[in-house]
């Protein structure tokens, strides 16, 4: 008991007991995860499950302190578990080197936890865990960091705002023509090198890149067609990979011939400076000189390379990548998919290739060239990350967990690090209420037990939704891939659910199209029945209809949508900004904390229009509760800021 003495003293016996009995899920064992795991272990949490699909990289070691040089390429979840276990062998720890979106981690599995901690680095997984926690009705503590900034938020279904209650910015994309024909910023050339050139030569096709925006394609149909042909020709050159002439062929194609063609389109250059193709033969002497300093150039990470140095790096990295791809091909199975190389910011060969190609293109278009260090950040969407910030955020997460354990959600806080506010280093705001229009949490949710051997869509639509839950004529049933039923699309009714691609752990969304008074969307989590369900093939687990007293239809247990932001079903109103007294006594409109942090926090990032030069995310704003200026400087130059990994 001695070991537990300080915790017992400060937490008090009841809370300390709750801590010991808690079952915790921690998703992500990276920057925040390592710190969090240590804090959870030393706070005495009884059972901790760790899920992470990542492996350890050298660039993690400046902050992910459970990992060492010798752990590189090993599973983060497993190494973190072992490190924590050695410290306290009495703990129950379980590690899963897996994707949290895997089907084994279903709603019932989530329901087994007292609470969940998100220590993730990407939007997609965050939203997934948010959705699962809402479906399982398990409290979630969400956190993220970016450089010196960070935030923590408690999510509890129906009581506090969820992760999706505010819109999140989608990653930035560029029109195809800007990237392929008329670049004007370094980032355009970097995206070209990464998403077009590298992927055409060593990967699959460019069209899958989320960084390319095709919405303007139709306006430029002719040019797009030309570009398509250009890409086709590039594919032919790819065939020459490995031959002596390959580097020269590729160079001439993309830095001379394609540029010549572009240049000949005089329309395009009326108001722009026309590009200048690079003539390889005229550089031979200088390139040969630079070649002798090759290893020195390659070490020079932060200096901007000149034309000849870029050519040296281009050729050298091309050779390295070609060799690698060919050896991958020679060792891969015949029936396996064609091996490819994709961009990875920590893969030096791809980074060198992208840096040199991007710079060569910048030179052609008279755009500022960048150092490899800077290009790495822009191409890899690198988020600065340090131990200090993660330590603070992890500490805040555990402090919030005490309130969650007590069920005291009304005193949970949304806390932001404000490293540049001179009078405090943290600013905490009251939790936000759920957004009544939120697509993730302002919905009704229930699990349904389904006998997969016989349940048909008709059983679901007629017996369960209409008869039991009281739905009218007009509604739509969506699976995760699309609609399977609406009032005009009835041919599936006789089919079995399993033949419509629905299986255990699937989600179905029911959208009520009633004109008068529609219900909120209903999310059904399908559970496969393991025993015979006797009379009915589909059975609601969490809600069920009850016969109504005064009508032939049962009363609906699914609440109706609110007609406006006005209070109607007991949930708070949050469509309106809260009004708070400000420091000067004047009543001011309080910005939500989200807005106060603007686009920095890994949260709610609004797209920013930028015209020329670099795109940098900067925010100057006022934090309502304390009336203090909060200035954030985040010069990530076009990088898409997400969070620590």
């Amino acid at each position: 008991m001695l070991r537990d003495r300080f915790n017992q003293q400060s937490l008090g016996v009841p809370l300390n007991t709750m801590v010991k009995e808690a079952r915790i899920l921690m998703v992500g064992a990276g920057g925040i995860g390592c710190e969090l795991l240590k804090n959870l272990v030393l706070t005495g949490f009884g059972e901790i499950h760790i899920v992470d699909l990542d492996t350890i990289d050298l660039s993690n070691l400046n902050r992910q302190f459970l990992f060492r040089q010798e752990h590189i390429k090993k599973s983060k979840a497993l190494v973190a578990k072992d490190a924590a276990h050695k410290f306290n062998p009495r703990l129950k720890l379980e590690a899963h080197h897996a994707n949290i979106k895997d089907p084994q981690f279903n709603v019932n599995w989530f329901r087994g936890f007292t609470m969940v901690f998100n220590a993730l680095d990407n939007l997609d997984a965050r939203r997934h865990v948010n959705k699962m926690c809402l479906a399982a009705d398990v409290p979630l503590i969400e956190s993220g960091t970016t450089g010196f900034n960070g935030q923590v938020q408690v999510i509890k279904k129906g009581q506090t705002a969820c992760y999706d209650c505010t819109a999140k910015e989608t990653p930035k994309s560029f029109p195809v023509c800007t990237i392929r024909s008329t670049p004007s910023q370094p980032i355009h050339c970097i995206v070209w090198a990464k998403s077009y050139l590298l992927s055409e030569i060593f990967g699959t096709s460019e069209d899958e890149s989320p960084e390319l925006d095709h919405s303007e394609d139709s306006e430029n149909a002719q040019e797009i067609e030309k570009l398509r042909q250009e890409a086709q020709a590039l594919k032919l050159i790819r065939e020459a990979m490995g031959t002596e002439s390959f580097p020269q062929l590729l160079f001439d194609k993309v830095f001379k011939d394609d540029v010549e063609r572009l240049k000949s389109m005089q329309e395009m250059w009326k108001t722009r400076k026309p590009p200048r193709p690079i003539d390889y033969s005229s550089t031979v002497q200088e390139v040969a000189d630079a070649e002798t300093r090759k290893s020195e150039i390659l070490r020079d990470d932060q200096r901007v390379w000149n034309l000849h140095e870029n050519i040296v790096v281009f050729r050298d990295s091309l050779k390295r990548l070609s060799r690698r791809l060919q050896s991958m091909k020679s060792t891969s199975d015949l029936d396996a998919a064609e091996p490819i190389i994709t961009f990875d910011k920590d893969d030096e060969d791809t980074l060198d290739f992208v840096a040199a190609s991007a710079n060569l293109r910048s030179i052609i278009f008279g755009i500022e060239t960048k150092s490899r260090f800077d290009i790495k950040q822009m191409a890899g969407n690198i988020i600065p990350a340090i131990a200090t910030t993660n330590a603070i955020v992890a500490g805040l997460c555990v402090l919030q967990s005490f309130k969650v354990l007590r069920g005291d959600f009304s005193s949970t806080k949304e806390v932001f690090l404000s490293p540049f506010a001179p009078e405090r280093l943290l600013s905490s705001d009251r939790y936000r209420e759920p957004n009544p229009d939120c697509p993730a949490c302002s919905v009704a949710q229930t699990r349904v037990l389904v006998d997969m051997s016989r349940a048909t869509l008709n059983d679901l639509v007629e017996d369960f939704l209409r008869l039991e839950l009281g739905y009218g004529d007009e509604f739509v049933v969506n699976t995760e891939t699309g609609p399977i039923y609406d009032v005009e699309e009835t041919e599936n009714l006789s089919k079995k659910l399993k033949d419509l691609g629905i299986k255990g752990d699937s989600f179905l969304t029911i959208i009520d199209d009633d004109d008068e008074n529609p219900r909120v969307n209903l999310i059904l989590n399908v559970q496969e029945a393991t025993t015979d369900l006797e009379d009915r093939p589909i059975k609601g687990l969490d809600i069920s209809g009850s016969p109504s007293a005064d009508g032939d239809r049962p009363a609906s247990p699914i609440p109706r949508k609110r007609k406006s932001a006005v209070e109607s079903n007991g949930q708070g109103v949050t469509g309106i900004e809260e009004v708070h007294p400000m420091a000067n006594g004047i009543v001011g409109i309080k910005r939500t904390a989200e807005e106060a942090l603007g686009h920095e926090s890994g949260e709610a990032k609004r797209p920013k229009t930028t015209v020329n030069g670099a795109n940098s995310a900067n925010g100057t704003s006022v934090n309502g509760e304390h009336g203090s200026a909060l200035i954030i400087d985040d010069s990530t130059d076009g990088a898409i800021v997400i969070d620590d990994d």
Partner: protein
Amino acid sequence: MTEVVTNPTPPILHGPSDKEKKYDRQLRLWAANGQQALEDAHILLLNSGSGTVGVETLKNLVLPGIGKFTIADDAVVAEADLGVNFFLDEESLGQSRSERCVNFLQELNPDVKGEHFPKQEGDNIEKLLGYGRQYTLIMYSLPIEPYTLALIQQYGQQYKVPLVSIHSAGFYSYFQIHLPGCFPIIDTHPDSTATTDLRLLNPWPALSEFTRNLTKDIDNLSAHEHGHIPYLVLLLYYLEKWKESHGGFPSTYGDKKAFREFVSEGARTDNPEGGEENYDEAVAAVLKTVSEPSLSSSVKDVFEYQPTAEESDSSFWIITDAIKKFYGKHGELPLPGSVPDMKAQSSVYVELQNIYKVKARQDVAEVLETVRQHPRGKEIDVNEVETFCKNAAFVKLIHSPDSSADTLKEITGMFDEQALLTMMPLSLLPIYLALNATSHVPSASTSEIIATISKTVPEACSDPRVVQAAEEVARANGGELHNISAMIGGMVSQEVIKIITKQYIPIDNTCILDGITSRTQVLRI
């Protein structure tokens, strides 16, 4: 924890680029010069009490690669340590706490050297501090013996070494930074929108000529050209026209509003968009960019400060002197030289960037020449002069407060008044008072804490919030909560990095944490 490596042989990192890779994510925050400063640093931690908060702080400094650290700690590892300190294990029981912690911390980063103290019988604090200016910064955790504290303070005074004290007990904690004399910071990392300095009211000849060329035929330009005149050129053009008709530049708020109107009238609206984006940008920039250059209070503070004889020999003050002369002569600071994003044709934008860069270079050259005239001026690196010129409008001097009972009295007298008036959260000063009262004792009862507080600020003792804080501190009984210590350790290390790299502005000077409400407050005590 993994096994202790008794003789830590660092795994070989392959060349400098491996190190750059390891530190990649932080180099983006403080760059190579900040990293170098960290790697040159030697930090001393005097550990006491239950000993976790200092070690947690060091962890966050070892990871990003400080050069060296020393832990001085007399304690022997006990069972209770294991429940709160992650850098100890079962095998550590009964052994030297400093030695075990050093071993574990060193495992985190083979590039960092660690020393423990005492090493042998008879090693004492005098010996630890007896080798001259050895430490870059000293951290000590509270409680601490008054005698030891006095020696550390003396050392800090003598060698101008920053001191950081940390106290963590139960849900409460605070840390306090004691900087020696004046602490100048050049690279304060101001918000990049704030750094925009376009010199619209006093353009130099090259900029004026560029403007004239672009606008000489403004009414006959094609729609594309007209819509792509950079907004700063537009502003220069309209300012000139305004001056012709008004006899001066717009200076009052009303003038500027009228000027804004004047600019927007120049936009062409006979196009599908019904306006021009570059004009929108120009209109939006009027209030922010059309203003007489003025010195910020922090720069004035630097200019007015009289450095001591010893200080004035440092490069900071030599460059400051040169910049003061520059300002005296031109009425403005050296031009930072950056141009913000704007709608423009790329060739025009690049040209514009160059005009600003050339002027910035000329200004640096002029400052450099003055610097070189100083007897020590030849030793000063041109990069330092460049950085200074670039950041000249944002340099900052931190004056450490004279900690005395009087200041504490003064703050205590009004700690909640302000908060009650403004409906701000109540002050966290009671937490500081209660913790501070146990600065030299391992634990104390509520009444003992109140009695100690009454010696310095008797009027605070009747405050129920002070009594409450004293009860909470008494309840913690000198014990740390790991989570609170880890969190405050994160905050302390963040400030230590700012001090060592001399980048970003460290807090001034005391940060108090209330772990019950997840709140912090910074006070100057």
